[in-house]
């Protein structure tokens, strides 16, 4: 009986990892800029999911909960640090970023995390500002302003470095 429960819970964990780990890692990495820390944030997110065992109406709600938790953990991680990590180019190739994209990624990671999170949730994950405000626990107006400011900063940096 115990073995059956363990196999079932292990299968559940495997399913979670296959479904969400890359997504959560991507979001965390853009904030913390360090592979070990981002992996740690993902581990902590899943641990909280497994210990709190929240119930969800649907998969979208589950995904939004996980995103909220990993965003909070990642933001807390950079608060605990004394200084910001520089992006390691060696590490970038280990996480799937091509060499030719490393300059663009350095610019992305240089954006303040509050703008990066909103940009990722909107452009990469397709969330609207109302959904982003719920995930990040900010007002819809603030989410819209951060999105606009994030876009302006990104455009300014890319044009300044003449990358496109």
């Amino acid at each position, binding site marked *: 009986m115990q073995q059956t429960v363990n196999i079932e819970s292990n299968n559940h964990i495997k399913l979670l*990892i296959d479904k969400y780990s890359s997504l959560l890692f991507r979001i965390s990495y853009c904030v913390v800029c360090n592979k070990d820390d981002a992996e*740690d944030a993902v581990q902590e997110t899943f*641990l909280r999911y497994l210990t709190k065992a929240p119930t969800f109406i649907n998969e979208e709600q589950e995904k939004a909960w996980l995103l909220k938790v990993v965003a909070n953990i990642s933001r807390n991680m950079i608060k605990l640090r004394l200084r910001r990590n520089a992006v390691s180019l060696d590490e970038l190739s280990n996480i799937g970023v091509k060499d030719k994209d490393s300059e*663009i990624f350095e610019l*992305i990671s240089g954006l303040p995390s509050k703008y990066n999170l909103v940009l*990722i949730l909107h*452009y990469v994950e397709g969330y609207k500002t109302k959904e982003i405000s719920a995930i990040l626990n900010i007002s819809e107006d603030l989410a819209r302003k951060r999105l606009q400011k994030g876009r302006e900063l990104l455009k300014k940096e890319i044009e300044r470095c003449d990358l496109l």
Partner: protein
Amino acid sequence: MSSITNEYIRVVKSISLDESSKENLFHKLTESSGTSKYETKKQIAVVSVAAIAVAACISYFVRSGNKIR
């Protein structure tokens, strides 16, 4: 969508966790202890701040006691 946002999306989407890291994560989650380094660091930070606060209070009271004498 502008070319800038397209580039942003493309580069961010390329970030992923490799299979060996996923395996590693699976093993960490299925271990009995399962405490992450983040949680451990947070606990250390809380204990350190509390210890500094206690030391500061003790130092203040000792100095106050010395002044009265």
